[in-house]
């Protein structure tokens, strides 16, 4: 250890640091400024950027001793007693902050760039931010904020905008200013006294029997406090009750490279890590199943990955639904397109690695963890730790993005809870980026053959899909994924003859699960490609063809989905107009093209994962003498802005401003149950519950102020912080009204709830994909292709999404832009690459999330159709928007060079190969 002198944000520090300790660690752990984030530890994401003597530096790869005597500015040092730095204000105002985890780094880099290049341009800003990864925003609002700051920097007057709180008026997140200052605490920012640190010993075999685990050498290290192995936590879990196939630590055998075999708790992370290397595990390798092909065939009964699988194979689930007769339909169709597709797996790539802290006290277990779904974790912890539900408290702190990747209960959460109980100490864990990738639960690698039949007039007649998805070692959400690959093809087009069959196979790889656009992204890409092909075959404009086939509002699909509001037509019209489709599509030079795609998605699953009679969402409101309304909701704000959405809805109903509202979200001790942030359900379900609660509170207030007065309650108005009757006989300020309400009664608490209506058919599988409402959308993409290298340059994406009603348009735009960005990544560069079961690209350098420079201009359009059952007409916007963008890109490639893309990601070498094949076949024809 060495003594290091530093001045951080103007304050002098002298700290003891390890000789090779990183500056990021010193700033976060020793100086306690946790606004500096650690996303990758390899200088590939930019979240850890600080200024050292006014120069930006990646603190995660900078040894602390390198910066001796330096003056350091962290994100916490930018704001002053006069308020936020103007650039921070811009980030807040423009909605550039979603999960907020990349924000500190973005702000530091942007600030440095503008200080040094006051006359910079938008391109200059994009270039400067190219080393900072954001997974939420698609960079658009970040770039807008920085551009606007650069332009206004000179002007001395800076108007502070009213933040507002009305439905339909865009506003920043309620916590945005906390996030932009680095003051929002994420899971790894909680530091409990005497906490132990946990590290894991992980399997180095894809499939092997565990013969023995020798912990003795590891125990020799001073500072090691506990070593946990599988038999201590024998209860199986899994997010779906129908596939609980996982234990927290491997028992008897390992099923993928990276599975946790032992967990060491020690005084420091370094000690725990060293001890892990000394745990000697003897394995007996078993036959490996690494691909779909390996797993689809019959195997010996003792070779199976899971003993519980019914037959002698590794098929986890077969799902099949048929409406009509597909064989007959395909015979009768005037034109048929049949193609086979292959898609690699992709991962969520959220910027905040998983982290958690657990402790036990007189109230039982408390765990603070980066989770999207506190409720299922609550249940899982009670089950696996074998304690009553009443002894488990799950707290969600600020979460740095999830996209489905934080929606399962995870082994590390169970393990640290267990060790905390055993040792009586708080226990912390944070996963490295490599471990985050190994934890995966990302999109399934898929293979599918799909046939689509139509008439020559463009009417779609029949669709048959045959799908296999590679689930990896465990179940996760996989059964739902299996269904979604099929059932979510029955819209947005009318199809009376429709069927699918999906197999989900187990393989010896990290498990796949739910990821943004769950289950239907790959099959949607396939179907939209087929539609494009049919359009070419019958020489019809693909926009027109789609227009002809869209389901109408207030209709039923063949599988009995109830379609209510439907903005498909408006969406495609919007992007066609905006992109000048009529004059561009099919009319560009060779190598330059336009493509279109559509999509739809559920607005929350109508059925809960665990069958019970609880409402899908309950929201509590409490108002006390001070007039502040406290919203408590179990919904998980993970950066998508759901806390703000709840505040806006309650403010709207009560006619008050959001500064009178406070939200506590996702703490299972304090908040009523909400099923969590998955299946794009929160705005619809928690939003409806909040609206219901606010109406109940409004009823209580009405009753109190109308007491003894002969005024009908419908003549009472709640507006602009006042409550008044039409005749103004009642004319109270909000606080006067609250005085009346609480007199002789005290604080008033009310509850609101959302229960989905009974929907759907009564056949097996009818529940899959049922939702009280569906979102719809469309994208047009413009590409240029280098026909000698195959490189695809995505120039523009125009997108439109029917979200019913945008409660907070700024947040909705952010969701759409983030979805498109993620789709662009899957389309062009992202994949989970394996070598013999080992994930090869397990870091932010090798996993190719698009940078600012790889992200084209995004044109964002919100389509509003006012859903009859959504809160104020709102429905989902967080996932469905991803669906159309991938096929739009693929179809643009067809328009540009006439080749049909059937693989994801669309790497340049693949495009080149297709171009060559095409040229060759042309030559053959001419011979």
């Amino acid at each position, binding site marked *: 250890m060495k003594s290091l002198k530093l001045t951080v944000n103007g304050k002098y520090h002298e700290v003891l640091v390890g000789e*090779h300790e990183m500056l990021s660690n010193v700033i976060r752990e020793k100086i306690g400024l946790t606004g500096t984030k650690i996303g990758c530890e390899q200088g590939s994401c930019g979240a850890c950027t600080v200024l050292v003597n006014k120069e930006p530096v990646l603190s995660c790869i900078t040894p602390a001793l390198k910066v001796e005597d330096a003056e350091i500015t962290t994100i916490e040092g930018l704001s002053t007693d006069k308020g936020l730095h103007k650039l921070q204000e811009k980030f807040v105002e423009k909605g550039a902050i979603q999960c907020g985890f990349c924000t500190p780094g973005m702000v530091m880099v942007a600030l440095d760039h503008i200080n040094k290049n006051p006359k910079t341009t938008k391109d200059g800003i994009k270039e400067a931010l190219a080393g900072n990864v954001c997974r939420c925003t698609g960079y658009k609002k970040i770039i807008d904020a920085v551009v606007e700051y650069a332009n206004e920097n000179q002007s001395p007057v800076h108007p502070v905008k009213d933040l507002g709180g009305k439905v339909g008026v865009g506003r920043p997140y309620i916590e945005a200013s906390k996030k932009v200052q680095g003051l929002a605490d994420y899971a790894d920012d909680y530091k409990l006294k005497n906490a132990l640190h946990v590290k894991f010993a992980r399997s180095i075999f894809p499939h092997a029997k565990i013969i023995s685990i020798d912990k003795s050498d590891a125990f020799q290290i001073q500072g090691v406090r506990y070593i946990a192995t599988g038999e201590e936590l024998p209860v199986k879990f899994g997010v779906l009750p129908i596939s609980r196939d996982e234990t927290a630590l491997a028992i008897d055998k390992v099923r993928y490279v990276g599975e946790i075999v032992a967990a060491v708790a020690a005084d420091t992370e370094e000690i725990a890590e*060293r001890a892990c290397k000394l745990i000697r595990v003897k394995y007996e390798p078993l036959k490996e199943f690494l691909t779909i092909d390996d797993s689809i065939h019959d195997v010996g009964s003792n070779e199976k990955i899971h003993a519980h699988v019914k037959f002698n194979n590794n098929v986890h689930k077969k799902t099949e639904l048929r409406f009509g007769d597909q064989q007959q339909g395909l015979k009768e169709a005037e034109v048929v397109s049949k193609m086979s597709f292959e898609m690699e797996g992709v991962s969520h790539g959220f910027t905040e690695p998983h982290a958690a802290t657990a402790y036990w006290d007189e109230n039982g277990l408390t765990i603070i963890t980066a989770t999207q779904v506190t409720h299922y974790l609550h249940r899982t912890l009670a089950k696996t730790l074998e304690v009553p539900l009443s002894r488990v408290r799950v707290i969600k702190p600020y979460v740095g993005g999830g996209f489905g990747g934080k929606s399962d209960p995870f082994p590390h959460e169970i393990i640290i809870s267990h060790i905390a109980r055993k040792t009586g100490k708080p226990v912390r864990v944070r996963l490295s980026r490599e471990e985050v990738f190994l934890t995966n639960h990302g999109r399934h690698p898929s293979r599918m053959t799909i046939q689509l039949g139509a008439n020559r007039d463009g009417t779609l007649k029949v669709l048959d899909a045959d799908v296999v998805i590679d689930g990896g070692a465990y179940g996760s959400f996989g059964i739902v994924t299996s269904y979604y690959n099929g059932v979510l093809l029955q819209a947005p087009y009318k199809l009376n003859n429709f069927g699918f069959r999906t197999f989900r196979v187990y393989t010896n790889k990290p498990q796949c699960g739910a990821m943004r656009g769950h289950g239907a992204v790959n099959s949607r890409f396939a179907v939209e490609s087929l539609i494009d092909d049919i359009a070419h075959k019958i020489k019809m404009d693909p926009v027109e063809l789609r227009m002809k086939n869209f389901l109408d509002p207030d209709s039923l699909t063949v599988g009995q989905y109830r379609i209510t509001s439907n903005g498909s037509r408006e969406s495609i019209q919007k992007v066609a107009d905006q992109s000048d489709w009529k004059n561009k599509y099919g009319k560009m030079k060779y190598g330059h093209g336009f493509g279109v795609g559509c999509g739809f998605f559920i607005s929350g699953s109508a059925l809960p994962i665990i069958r019970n009679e609880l409402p899908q969402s309950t929201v509590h409101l409490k108002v006390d003498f001070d007039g502040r309304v406290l919203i408590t909701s179990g919904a998980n704000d993970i950066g998508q802005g759901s806390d703000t959405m709840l505040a806006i809805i309650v403010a709207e109903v009560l006619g008050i401003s959001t500064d009178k509202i406070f939200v506590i979200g996702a703490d299972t001790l304090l908040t009523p149950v909400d099923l969590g942030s998955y299946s794009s359900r929160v705005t619809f379900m928690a939003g409806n519950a909040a609206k219901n609660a606010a109406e109940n509170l409004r009823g209580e207030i009405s009753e109190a102020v109308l007491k003894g007065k002969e005024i009908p309650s419908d003549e009472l108005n709640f507006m602009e912080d006042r409550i008044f009757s039409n005749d103004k006989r009642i004319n109270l300020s909000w606080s006067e009204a609250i005085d009346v309400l609480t007199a002789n009664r005290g604080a008033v608490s009310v509850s609101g709830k959302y229960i989905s209506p009974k929907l759907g058919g009564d056949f097996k599988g009818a529940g899959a994909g049922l939702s009280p409402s569906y979102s719809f959308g469309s994208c047009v993409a413009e590409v240029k292709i280098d026909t000698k290298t195959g490189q695809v340059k995505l120039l523009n994406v125009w997108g439109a999404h029917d979200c019913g009603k945008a409660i907070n348009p700024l947040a909705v735009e952010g969701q759409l832009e983030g979805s498109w960005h993620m789709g662009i990544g899957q389309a062009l560069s992202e994949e989970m690459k394996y070598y013999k079961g080992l994930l090869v690209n397990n870091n932010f350098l090798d996993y190719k999330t698009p940078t600012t420079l790889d992200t084209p201009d995004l044109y964002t359009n919100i389509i509003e159709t006012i859903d009859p059952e959504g809160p104020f007409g709102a429905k989902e916007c967080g996932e469905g928007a991803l669906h159309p963008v991938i096929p739009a890109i693929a179809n643009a490639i067809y328009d540009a060079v006439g080749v049909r893309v059937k693989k994801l990601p669309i790497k340049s*070498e693949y495009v080149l190969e297709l171009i060559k094949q095409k040229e060759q076949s042309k030559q053959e024809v001419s011979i």
Partner: protein
Amino acid sequence: MNVAQKSYLKPRSVEEAISFAGKNGSSFRYLAGGTDVMVNKFQGNEEANCLIDISGINELKQVTRDENFLKVGSLVKLDDLKNYPEMENEFPVLLQAAQEVASPMLRKTATIGGNILCENRCVFYNQSEWWREAVGYCLKCDGDICIATGGKKNCFSKFVSDMAPVLIALNSFLEIADAEGEYKVRLEDIYTGNGLKPKELNQTAIIRSILIPVTERYTCVFKKLRPREAVDFTSLTTVVSIDDHGKIKIVLGGVDPKPVVVGGTISSHVEKLIEQAVKKPRIVDNDFYTRLYRKEMISVFLKRSFEELRNILTIK
């Protein structure tokens, strides 16, 4: 268990740095910007107990000029190269190459010397300790097999510097100081082509400066293949230079354990030169792109480079 004593030293002069190195046997590593070394250290590819941070040695941060050379101190940061007018005026291709290294943030720390000495890379080697154990250690981490090729003899970890191919195309030299003294060497001569030990330098060696000849004028075209427009290491770097006497030099990076050089003159058949350049590198499947694709791109990039050169030269 004993944990080896770690140390962090900050010499003020090249001489002091070399003497620190001498005292630390084999377990030391010089650190300039650290953007390469620290990442390798995080992954466990770099295990030196002693880090000798040379970034405080001011004599290595100068850019000077004599009648023969522009002397660029090895610690000049990639992002700072643009601050020297002679770069823009005489060697714009160096600026272009610098601009395409890694990300803007990394370029603010990474140095030109560090880039030249950047460790060779391979998808099977640049992994965590745990990962390499799981895959079965490769030749480059004391194992007995090259995972990329299945061979037992040669390591094909790829050379990934983007600055070095340009500097080689400009016939640059290095001024080196080591425990034995000081000497000048042609840049291209320091690379061995052996993926296990890619550079032929004494362990204590420090690059004082890069000597770029100013007596000759070059026209140069630089191209880089990478999956994304920022952050990524090269999958293929091509540089073609032609001097006033019509001497052509092709340098390739990212496709072999060392920079691959093919020479010719203006009277050579360009096709032949390109053919040689495609044949010469030992490309293996250790990259985002396949071996065959990168091989094919050599020819595409070079054809384009020659076309661009022709255009530039005609205009001139």
